[in-house]
């Protein structure tokens, strides 16, 4: 690069915001997006009458949902709602336990064996790529319907999420402290406990809270495939066309999700 040595040339280059390649890539993205939308619009199977009918149908449904039958809360919702919270909490705790070894194996500064690294990454990716509903279907088939399947589904879906973030946190620790502990002749386990663990502890709690918040939302849906919780109550109300009960269930899900979010924000503010 002869031009690289000429300062005038350099400034001139920097004034152009993007290189031709960058500009080409941007246009390419735009083209792909537009093409995808056009093709999808042409190809997707939507019955035009349904589309035209949708607004009035929605209004009709909202009319049927209102007012909610609040007495149903004590009869059929409360217990299922608590079960949902238990699924979310137990699933998160189990995920933390399962994710810890995988995260250790996936952190490049801890594991040097390339096969183990790839294997750990594979475990994390497959956990994240399978939706919690699919995990629930699998565990319902294995252990039968109920809370256990829900807890396992939440845990297996969360392992990838928690493990990935924890692995990244482990890779970001201050290696100087770790080096100092190694230099004292500490065994590897002690280095993990006293060098890595204090440094990733805040990140771990933060990840756990974050995931628990998501899991409260996710566990509400698992009942639809028989894995316990509020989803079962929702399904029952829907199948029997008691719309005022449906709206009670929806309201209680909304309340719990908002409450969980508030709790998480408060704890984060206090601790971290």
């Amino acid at each position, binding site marked *: 690069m002869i031009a690289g040595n000429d300062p005038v040339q350099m400034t001139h280059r920097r004034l152009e915001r993007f290189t031709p390649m960058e500009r080409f890539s941007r246009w390419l993205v735009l083209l792909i997006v537009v093409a995808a939308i056009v093709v999808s619009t042409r190809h997707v199977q939507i019955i035009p009458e349904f589309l035209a009918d949708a607004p009035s149908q929605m209004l*009709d449904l909202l009319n049927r949902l209102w007012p909610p039958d609040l007495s149903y809360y004590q009869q059929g919702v409360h217990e299922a709602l608590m079960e949902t919270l238990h699924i979310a909490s137990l699933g998160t705790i189990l995920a933390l336990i399962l994710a810890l070894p995988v995260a250790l194996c996936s952190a490049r500064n801890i594991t040097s064996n390339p096969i183990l690294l790839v294997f750990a990454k594979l475990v994390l990716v497959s956990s994240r790529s399978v939706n919690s509903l699919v995990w629930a279907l699998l565990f319902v088939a294995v252990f039968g319907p109920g809370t*256990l399947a829900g807890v396992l589904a939440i845990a297996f879906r969360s392992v990838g999420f928690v493990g990935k973030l924890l692995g990244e946190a482990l890779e970001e620790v201050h290696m100087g402290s770790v080096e100092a502990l190694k230099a004292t002749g500490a065994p590897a386990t002690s280095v993990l406990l006293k060098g890595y663990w204090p440094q990733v502890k805040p990140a771990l709690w933060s990840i756990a809270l974050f995931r628990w918040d998501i899991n409260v*939302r996710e566990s509400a849906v698992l009942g*639809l495939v028989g894995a316990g919780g509020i989803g079962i109550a929702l399904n029952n109300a829907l199948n029997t066309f008691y719309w005022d009960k449906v709206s009670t269930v929806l309201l209680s899900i909304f309340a719990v999700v*908002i409450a969980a979010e508030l709790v998480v924000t408060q704890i984060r503010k206090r601790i971290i």
Partner: protein
Amino acid sequence: MTMPSTSHAKRNPFPVNWPSRIIWVALLAYLVYALSLIDISSERMIAGFGHGADMLGRMVPPDFSRWSLLLEGLLESLEIAILASAVGITLSLPIGFFAARNMMPPWVSWPARTLIAVCRSFHPVIVAIIFVKAVGFGALAGILALIVASVGFIAKLFAEAIEEISLKQVEAVRASGASFGNVIIFSVVPQVLSRFVGFSTYQVDSNLRNSTMVGIVGAGGIGGTLFSAFQRFDYDFVAAILISLIAVIMAGEYFSTWVKGVFK
């Protein structure tokens, strides 16, 4: 310098941290209580592992013979994701703008924020059930459900991004005598564009994942095929669907990483 009396007295290097100990005990107590609620008997576990092994055995080899059904479902999922993302992101722009507290008065921002909170609170599959009841089975219900999910996510982050922009730059551009449109284009857009692209691609990704699931409740896409294969114990077909699903989702992730790189 220091008093000899204290240096010779027995000192405890690790005074008890009561708050943290209480939290640990509470967590442990909860764990015991919650575990007692679910049925984890040894017979159930053993039977379960038997079923699991049986299921895994029947999953191999995956059965791709019904590939046209598979492809059809996947395509529909893809279309649901694309259309929902396009409409959802477009709708999120004004809603997010209305929800930004530094741009709008409270009587505009609060209703917008409530709408976003409602959209965010429900899992897309639950929203999909409602839409199936309202507009009938098929892709339309799925698209509407994922539009709701997209608004909940993008409008929220977009509002936060606008609230965080530096007003200094806005004022600098405004001071140069620019029109309102130019102020938006030259001061607001550059500050939020790359983040906007970032969370839009994230949402397209997430819509793609969910579009494969809404079919479970009849809202179109591969989910319906998967669910009925499960119910008919066609585990070899289930395996084929799962493999294709993971492949599509990973391709989507790869694509969105590339797009994010382009707009960095």
